[in-house]
């Protein structure tokens, strides 16, 4: 096989396969982890029937969803009904293309980079694809021809559009700090500047991180912002009429979104694959004495799971916001704060 084919076809396909496979695996076990952690918070056991410690539960769940009857309501708009779930999952998976999981070849000195691709407008790519997901939910909610689904779709449309604004604004902050839009470039900038961007220009970096966290939870429709699927109000919101694998796709999309948002947050604010304090001599044991590539992968995953734990923790703790209060929080607090934060960061950057 000529080298050019290996470089431009075989390796990318392999990498995509590995990343998508990993993400799917993480999602299925994230569901189990969520149920176990919630069980711990709620003084109960969680799934423990299928396999030791419930470890085979996700597999049983997936098998069940695969063989379930796939119902399309008679008066649903069929093409939109089918398209909806796909539009939720696909963009979330595509974003992983630009997330750096480990150090690039310039650091490791090896042949391969630990990301699928590194595009110079990475942040815009992330924003663009994160936006598409909402169409899936609106389409699904509208096409179901059910009033509860419609209300869920409407809610999520308003919510996701509102929260994309502060999210977009707050992504400008790490961009200003790094001076590049490439996600890999941003991690490298944190490596060179020897600081995670969440802790740069304190408290500006921290504020940006916080706004991103809140907006991210709202973006992925998770508690306490899980209004589109609020089970006590809208039965199941936009996916009320979905069943079988199509429902599973929505489910998958929600968790893929959680992981994507966490991964982007880790990359932009928490140093991505960098170990904590990479430049402090006596803390070099945090590199674990492993090759930098493996250590990088470990730290990235570790931070990612801390983030995901916070998501689950929130779900076990908070009640749900009301629709107007959610909008109020977004427009009256997060957007002005994010905007001021961008201005201040720019100012500080010029002055320093």
């Amino acid at each position, binding site marked *: 096989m000529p080298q050019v084919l290996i470089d431009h076809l075989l390796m990318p396909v392999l990498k995509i396969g590995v990343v998508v496979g990993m993400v799917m695996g993480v999602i299925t076990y994230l569901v189990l982890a969520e149920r176990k952690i919630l069980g711990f918070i*709620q*003084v109960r056991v969680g799934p423990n029937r299928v396999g030791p410690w419930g470890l085979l539960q996700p597999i049983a769940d997936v098998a069940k969803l695969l063989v379930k009857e796939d119902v399309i309501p008679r008066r649903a708009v069929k093409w939109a009904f089918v398209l909806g779930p796909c539009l939720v999952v696909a963009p979330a998976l595509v974003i992983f293309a630009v997330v750096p999981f480990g150090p690039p070849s310039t650091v490791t000195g090896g042949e391969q980079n630990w990301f699928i691709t590194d595009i110079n407008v990475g942040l815009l790519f992330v924003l663009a694809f994160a936006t598409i997901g909402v169409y899936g939910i609106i389409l699904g909610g509208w096409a179901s021809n059910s009033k509860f689904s419609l209300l869920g779709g409407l809610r999520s449309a308003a919510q996701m559009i509102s929260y994309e604004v502060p999210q977009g604004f707050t992504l400008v902050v790490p961009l200003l700090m790094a001076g590049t839009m490439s996600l890999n470039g941003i991690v490298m900038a944190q490596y060179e500047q020897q600081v995670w961007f969440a802790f740069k220009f304190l408290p500006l970096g921290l504020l940006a991180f916080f706004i991103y966290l809140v907006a991210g939870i709202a973006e992925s429709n998770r508690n306490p912002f899980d209004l589109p699927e609020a089970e006590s*109000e809208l039965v199941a919101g936009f996916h009320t009429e979905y069943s079988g694998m199509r429902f599973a796709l929505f489910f998958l999309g929600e968790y893929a979104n959680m992981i994507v948002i966490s991964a982007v947050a880790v990359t932009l604010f928490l140093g991505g694959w960098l170990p904590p304090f990479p430049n402090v001599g006596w803390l070099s044991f945090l590199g674990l004495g492993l090759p930098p590539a493996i250590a990088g992968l470990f730290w990235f995953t570790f931070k990612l799971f801390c983030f995901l734990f916070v998501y689950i923790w929130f779900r076990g703790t908070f009640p*749900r*916001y009301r*629709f107007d*209060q959610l909008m109020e929080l977004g427009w009256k607090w997060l957007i002005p704060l994010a905007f001021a934060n961008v201005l201040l960061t720019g100012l500080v950057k010029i002055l320093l």
Partner: protein
Amino acid sequence: MTESIETPTPDGETLFGLEEMELNFGPQHPATHGVLRLKLKVDGERIIGCYPIIGYLHRGTEKLFELSPFFQNIPHTDRMDYVAAATNNLAYVGAVEKLLGLVVPPRARYIRTILSELQRLSSHLLWLATHAIDIGAMTPFFYTFRERELILDLFEEYCGARLTLNCMRPGGQPYDLPVGWTDRCRELVDLFPAAIEEYGGLLTENRIWKKRTIGVGVLTAEKALAYGVTGPMLRGSGIQWDLRKAMPYEAYDEVDFDVPVFHNCDTYDRYLVRMEEMRQSTRILDQCLKQLPEGPIMGKRPRVLKAPKDSEVYHGIEGPKGEIGFYIVGDGKQQPYRCRVRPPSFYNLQVLPDMVEGLLLADLVAVIGTTDIVLGEIDR
């Protein structure tokens, strides 16, 4: 509200064919606590009309009362408010005792007080669990069910049943307390205050909880009185009325407790009222266990219970949800000639349309939770 929906153009035509949406909320909806059906008119998410439709659980209980002898009717009362069977039993046997002029011995009166306070706790725990889960907080549900389980264990030990207790008879109690029961009840009473603080810790000062409940579902004192609302709903509207204090029955005049009253008339205050009532219930239980007298548990009563000719009686007590009362007419037979129930949930549900008009869909769920209805006793 309606103006915002249709904005006619100058020539009287609407630009689009706009109309309010009718939303069928229930009877199989996760937040309607059983089979309540609400026909809603909504403008977007704002509720402009709410019409409760009841009757999905109608079993003709009141008619059934006329068919069997007085003591055989007690199980029917279990199945009305099925999360508070003991207080239903108490209201019914109280009415029968009044009708027949039976006297209950002191020990039986104390056992009844203990049972009905335990029942109040378990009913309030179920209310808190479902109310919180309606507003989106899942975790309190499991905490409250942990303690509710202990209460149900006590019931099971006393009468063999956990939910439909059938644990009282006209004239006294069917069973004495089992050996060691009071000690186990004492353990529960001792651990309960800390448990209440634990639930409160998740909710009382939670910003989102306060935002979702303060100022939501306002029920003014005048309106509450006009609709005949009773129980914690009434006390959350600033009116101090508790039948345990106002017309003491059983052993309530021999124990010391407070009646919590809050004045903001909203969902949050009704939450506070019920939380405080749970604390007061543990106080009552504590005193009852200390003062529990020895003696017989069944008073003198005729072998066959026969109502006097042309007799009628109304007896109401303070159930967990409000005043539960029985109106019985006797005509000299072993069965009641007519038995009419005054269920608290039925009257409390009446104010729902008034309370939710103009609120959002999410508030509707919070308000249904705060009315604490049980469809079993609304439909009977």
